[in-house]
């Protein structure tokens, strides 16, 4: 169960306590996150919403080990990542995090297959094993027949599917999605959210999603609002269902 009051038990997959992030812009100090607490359990699907500049992406970057907090702790699957060295953090990311970006961020000179294979190059898997993993991941996102295509030969929705395949291919502990539908039309966005939904339901993936899109956020088990550096719990899926009935 997702909690923001710092009262979660020790079984949480993600446990954040007193998270602070400050930036220095010239002489001005910007306090983006202030004493933030969060508990996420395995298999949870959490959406973060909030106005631009509220710190959603910053929070995601901190949870993904791309950035370091000014204060506070982040513990993921028992590993406290806030004090890891740069090299250790990189290794940790490779094992635990699958990133899905708004702009897909596929490498344009690599085929869909090669893009998905990237995280597996860091493992000790053989070429045949890598191939098998990549094919499964592309099959999950419905693009096995496009594995030899380059990103420029794919639509935006298909590119994002390849991005999702890349995120799940190494079977990470959790997926961090930074506005994955932000650059897509409604139909493609729905398809991508269907896919993420399926990853949670059928593959028991833990997903943390940042979005501006209420429809995308509506797919999550719980929506958290980030405003002025503080997390506020919004509606839970059960509440929304109750409200609709």
């Amino acid at each position, binding site marked *: 169960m997702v909690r923001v009051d710092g009262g979660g038990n020790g079984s949480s997959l993600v446990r954040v306590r007193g998270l602070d992030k400050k930036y220095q812009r010239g002489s001005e100090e910007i306090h983006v996150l202030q004493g933030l607490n969060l508990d996420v359990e395995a298999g949870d699907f959490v959406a973060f919403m909030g106005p631009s500049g509220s710190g959603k992406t910053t929070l995601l970057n901190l949870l993904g080990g791309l950035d370091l907090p000014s204060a506070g702790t982040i513990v993921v699957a028992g590993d406290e990542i806030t004090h890891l060295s740069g090299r250790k953090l990189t290794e940790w990311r490779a094992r635990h995090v699958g*990133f899905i970006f708004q702009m897909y961020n596929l490498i344009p000179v*690599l085929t869909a297959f090669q893009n998905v294979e990237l*995280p597996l*190059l860091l493992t000790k898997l053989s070429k045949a094993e890598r191939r098998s993993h990549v094919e499964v991941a592309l099959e999950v996102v419905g693009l096995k027949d496009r594995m030899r295509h380059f990103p420029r030969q794919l639509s935006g929705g298909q590119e994002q599917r390849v991005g999702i395949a890349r995120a799940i291919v190494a079977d990470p502990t959790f997926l961090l999605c930074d506005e994955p539908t932000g650059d897509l039309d409604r139909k493609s966005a729905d398809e991508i959210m269907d896919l993420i939904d399926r990853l949670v339901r059928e593959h028991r993936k833990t997903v943390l999603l940042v979005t501006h899109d209420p429809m995308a956020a509506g797919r999550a088990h719980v929506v958290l609002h980030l405003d002025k550096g503080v997390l506020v719990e919004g509606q839970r899926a059960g509440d929304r269902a109750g409200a609709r009935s």
Partner: protein
Amino acid sequence: MKYSSLILSNLFRKKIRTLLTIGSFAVALFLFGLLAVVHGAFNQGVDIAGADRLVIINKVSIIQPLPVSYEERLLRIPGIKSATHANWFGGVYQDERNFFAQFAVEDESYRPMFPEFVISDDQWKAYMSDREGAIVGAELAKRFKWKLGDRIPIKGTIFQGTWDFNVRGIYQGKRAQDDAAQFWFHYKYLEERENPFWKGLVGWYTVKVANLDDSVRIAKQIDETFANSPWETKTDTEKAFAASFAKQAGNIGFLIMSIGAVVFFTLLLVTGNTMAIAVRERVRDLAVLKAVGFSDVFVLVLVLAESLLIAAIGGALGLGLAKLLTLSGDPTHGMLPFFYLSPQTIVAGFSVALVVGVVAGLLPAITAMKLNVVAALRRV
């Protein structure tokens, strides 16, 4: 290698730019190869000179002769194993452009003095039994399509009249860089036909010493032996003699070093700029690599590997072309008999190319290594 597709795909992201950079390396290394060949051609005589041989010339100048009677006196000096002599003939075959060196040599002692020139006993015997016989180098025979038995007329410039020779032997150099473009004939033929002024005179002597360590002492002793005579001598090791000969053409080494340094410095700037642009263009891609778990060091090596690959392909191409060009031998037909790109030069050139590749790629690679993932992913 599992990362090869990543390196190659990035390398050929901008095909024309990569090919032009490879082309820059190829041109630079081709030039390096040719300059090294020219430098070697002027200095190869120094490198391959017999370490145990001394050359004795007239103290005034090499064009002044020495008496043939010196040979016996030289052989009496302790430490000298053997001695031979030769004369520069300086004739013209058909046309002045057909330059090659012709030597009137002492029959018995010349062949054993220069074991690097290999000739069969049968041919040597045929040469010895023909007063007008000549031995020619294999390259010379190839150049003029001469074969055994051919009659070669050479017009004298120092020694007047037309001189006819019969090709009785063709020698080969033991090493690729040995000069196989000489023309030898009997000193006796020269002496018998020439006017009395030249009788009993030779151009220079070459002596072989029994012990290398005695070379300096023997050279000094030779010059002292003939001091205060009408024909004073100047004795040097064959290496020093060849070096002083090479220096007459000017400081070719310095010239070539200067040109080479400018070329490689320019290449460094061109490649460095190319790699810097290549890194700037794919900041996002590099950030994504880091985000999915590739280390900073991996990104550094990735960029360096691309730079190295450009250098290796371009370097191999340039040196390969230079080698191909030099395979046909001396393009000046005799002025640069040692026109040869040695394996050592190829290795040196390739090493320089790789060093330039690493240095040029280092700064962009460090930039890529230090790339901040969060900031890079924010860029549109």
